[in-house]
């Protein structure tokens, strides 16, 4: 198993990412002058971290999502769920852009978000094609 695989299969990988995201949220809220909401957001992410850290050994679902129990089937489930989430998000962004346009607005920021999503898709195609 490579070093990268060891990291992603570690039971601490997803909890660590959750805590880092929680810290980033707290910092963002604090910069915006709303530290209390930031602390709540950090608490939620700390709860998620604890759930994966201590729940993965008790639940195959959490283990599969979190890392230790992740096999090829869970990797495929995660990939398909990510694709569905991306598709839904892009659809909502396009719908919101069209709504803004129909109301005489310039469509920001939905136009930019949609453009980023389109570029990301093209990059994904190029990378996928290059890898064979």
């Amino acid at each position, binding site marked *: 198993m490579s070093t990268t695989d060891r990291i992603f299969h570690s039971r601490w990988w997803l909890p660590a990412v959750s805590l880092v995201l929680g810290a980033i949220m707290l910092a963002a809220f604090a910069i915006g002058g709303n530290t209390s909401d930031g602390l709540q957001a950090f608490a939620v992410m700390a709860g998620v971290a604890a759930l994966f850290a201590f729940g993965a050994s008790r639940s*195959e*679902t959490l*283990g*599969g999502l979190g890392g230790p*129990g992740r*096999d*090829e*089937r*869970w990797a495929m489930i995660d990939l398909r769920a990510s694709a569905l989430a991306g598709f839904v998000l892009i659809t909502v962004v396009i719908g919101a852009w069209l709504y803004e346009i129909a109301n005489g607005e310039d469509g920001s920021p939905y136009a930019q978000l949609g453009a980023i999503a389109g570029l990301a898709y093209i990059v994904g195609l190029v990378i996928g094609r290059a890898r064979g």
Partner: protein
Amino acid sequence: MSRQTINSIEKERYTPSLPLAIALARYFDRSVEEIFHVDH
């Protein structure tokens, strides 16, 4: 490989990748064709 994945393979709800299929066949000391069947 998780227990859920084994269960899914047994119930033919999940088709394993070629490397996994070969690994399973070797584990049971059988050929891949003896363990997995493709319905046309």
